[in-house]
């Protein structure tokens, strides 16, 4: 039985941004387990003050290098809600399709490049190119497909160019959409193989009862806008998001923390599946049940599986969206924008959970006040509580240092944290 342990992971790898894990066990008892966020803040909320409305989506995309499309869409929605603009059907469908492909791209990046190496006993995806070339090629194919669609709809996979308040600067050709449909149909097979791969992984058995927060589905699995819901029964409107996030400042983190009914809550793929399971595409539901994932699941490591389930969902739903777009007459890409005084909130489910942008405008359409609440910042407190509980369990089980270290790192990676985003 191992009684003492001292773990200090400085700048945890295979996550976005800078965070440290510190665990100290003495005489078989947990002394300290800390999730520390040391990222430098960039002050996006402050830098937007005084800027015209059209700067917001362009600048806010740069909050995050992984979910720049999600930030752009949340920002656009906040501006449109403030100005009273309702996007056209065509715009809504194209935005959702774009959103789906960001979800696919980001989840595949996480599942294959960031999470899988832990289950396959390597430090990164790079050695897998020799040992498991088929796996790496498949990951590349899926990621490239998602990225190519993001180029085709949003103009660019990272920091999109065509997405603007009121719609798009230009539209994809119908021929491009048909090509995407063919490639997405092929992707269904690759996702089935992905599920097979993950079935060979041993997902750690660990649960801690948690409150899960996400958008509330209304006739569909929700991604862009709508009411907010928690598994503890809290229901709020989009513009009441602050009552859902309750941000506060802590010493151990340059990112703020959040709480709701308990000392912490979780957002992300697992939260969405837990709250909106019934709206998943039947194919996604089947995969989910095959992994024993059904609401309410309290194992944070199952977020990996929830991401896989969502990959299946977004690909299948995108096939439907493409058909609808191809069957309808092409409309003008962009609606006129008339700025006005007011406050607008945009809530969007990005890969790591629910994201909020809120802007207050003066009558000229200049930003008076800006607030962005990031999914990972909502998760930090929950990561901390999970880490404490996990370390406690490891201590009482008398696990070896290196096993505890790996498990702790895997726990944090399961949340797929986007740390620089959370500090912004």
């Amino acid at each position, binding site marked *: 039985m191992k009684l003492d342990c001292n773990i200090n992971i400085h700048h945890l790898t*295979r*996550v976005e941004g800078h965070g440290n894990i510190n665990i100290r066990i003495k005489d078989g008892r947990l002394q300290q387990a800390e999730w520390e966020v040391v990222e430098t803040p960039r002050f996006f909320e402050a*830098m937007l*003050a005084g800027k015209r409305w059209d*700067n917001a989506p362009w600048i806010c995309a740069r909050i995050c*290098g992984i979910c720049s499309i999600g930030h752009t869409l949340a920002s656009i929605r906040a501006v449109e809600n403030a100005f009273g603009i309702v996007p056209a059907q065509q715009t809504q469908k194209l935005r959702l399709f774009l959103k789906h492909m960001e979800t696919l791209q980001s989840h595949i990046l996480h599942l294959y490049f960031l999470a899988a190496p832990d289950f396959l006993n390597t430090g990164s*995806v*790079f050695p897998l190119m020799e040992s498991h070339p088929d796996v790496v090629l498949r990951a590349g194919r899926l990621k490239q497909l998602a990225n190519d669609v993001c180029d085709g709809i949003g*103009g660019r996979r990272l920091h999109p160019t065509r997405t603007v308040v009121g719609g798009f600067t230009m539209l994809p050709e119908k021929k491009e959409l048909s090509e995407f449909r063919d490639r997405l149909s092929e992707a269904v097979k690759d996702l089935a193989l992905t599920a097979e791969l993950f079935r060979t992984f041993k997902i750690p058995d660990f649960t801690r009862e948690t409150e899960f927060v996400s958008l509330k589905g209304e006739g569909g699995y929700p991604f862009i806008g709508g009411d907010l819901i928690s598994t503890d029964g809290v229901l709020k409107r989009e513009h009441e998001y602050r009552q859902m996030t309750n941000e506060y400042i802590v010493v151990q983190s340059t990112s703020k923390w959040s709480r709701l009914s308990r000392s912490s809550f979780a957002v992300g793929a697992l939260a969405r599946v837990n709250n909106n399971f019934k709206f998943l595409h039947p194919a996604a539901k089947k995969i989910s049940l095959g992994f024993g994932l059904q609401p309410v699941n309290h194992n944070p490591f199952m977020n990996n599986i929830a991401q896989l389930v969502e990959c299946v969902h977004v690909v299948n739903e995108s096939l439907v969206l493409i058909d609808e777009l191809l069957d309808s007459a092409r409309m003008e890409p962009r609606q006129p924008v008339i700025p006005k005084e007011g406050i607008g909130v945009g809530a969007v489910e990005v890969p790591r959970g629910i994201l909020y942008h809120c802007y207050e405008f003066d009558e000229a359409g200049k930003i008076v006040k800006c607030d962005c609440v990031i999914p990972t910042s909502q998760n930090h407190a929950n990561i901390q509580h999970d880490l404490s509980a996990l370390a406690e369990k490891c201590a009482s089980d008398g696990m070896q240092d290196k096993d505890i270290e790996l498990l702790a790192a895997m726990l944090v990676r399961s949340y797929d944290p986007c740390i620089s985003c959370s500090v912004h």
Partner: protein
Amino acid sequence: MAGQDSFRSYLGVPVKRPRVAFLELSSCEGCQLQILNNEACLPDFLSLVEVVNFREAMTERSEDYDIAFVEGSITRSDEVERLKKIRGTAKLLVAFGSCACFGGVNQLKNRFSPDRVKRAVYGDAPVETDIVRPIEDAVKVDLKIFGCPVKKEEVEKIVINLAIGKAVVHPKYPVCMECKANANICLFDLGEPCLGPITRAGCDSWCPNNRAGCWGCRGPADAANVKQLKTIMLERGFSEEIIMDRLDCFGGFSAFTNAMGKEAGTNK
């Protein structure tokens, strides 16, 4: 990667695979993700260089590298220390992306005092932040790769040149030339503001190809006539504010905007 031959040849001349590190200061990490976003050529790229430090993608890290790609700008004193260490290690230090080259969007906060932005976001809680600076303010930079984000095709070309020892030369002409060559409709004719005529080319007019006007993320082209463009844009009905928003956005034109501010008698 380990186990692979670390020598390649080009035109019969042996080429050593450089040991490469991707490192970041204050940034969105999007530029380094562009490397992973290049699925089709990733294996080829990785056979050309030996990636020894890339925290976002791999657990192993080495502090022994030839080329350091540094993304992000300086916003805190510990970043200066880190940067000096990197400079001491790297034979070639590359400022990777607009944040590293000019401060990027991060420098927009410099319009206000550090105290004011801190209070706006964190209240009275103690948080350290300084005026945002490009990395060449603290260390010598050997090469700049412009763009927000960097263009992966351009990065590849540059890395190939570095690996085989060829000089890296940036285009002297502006984005406008590439845009014309791509036969795009002029953004001015679509009523869109655009800094294409003064911004350094190399992105293949990425934004204008998508009917979005250029925001100048790559900084000024050689002999950019910023004043003349401003006159033309004002004549075309774009407000001073719209023009300045674009010139300010990524920090590449700060020398011009500071001079304009002084001329106008304002204290920017």
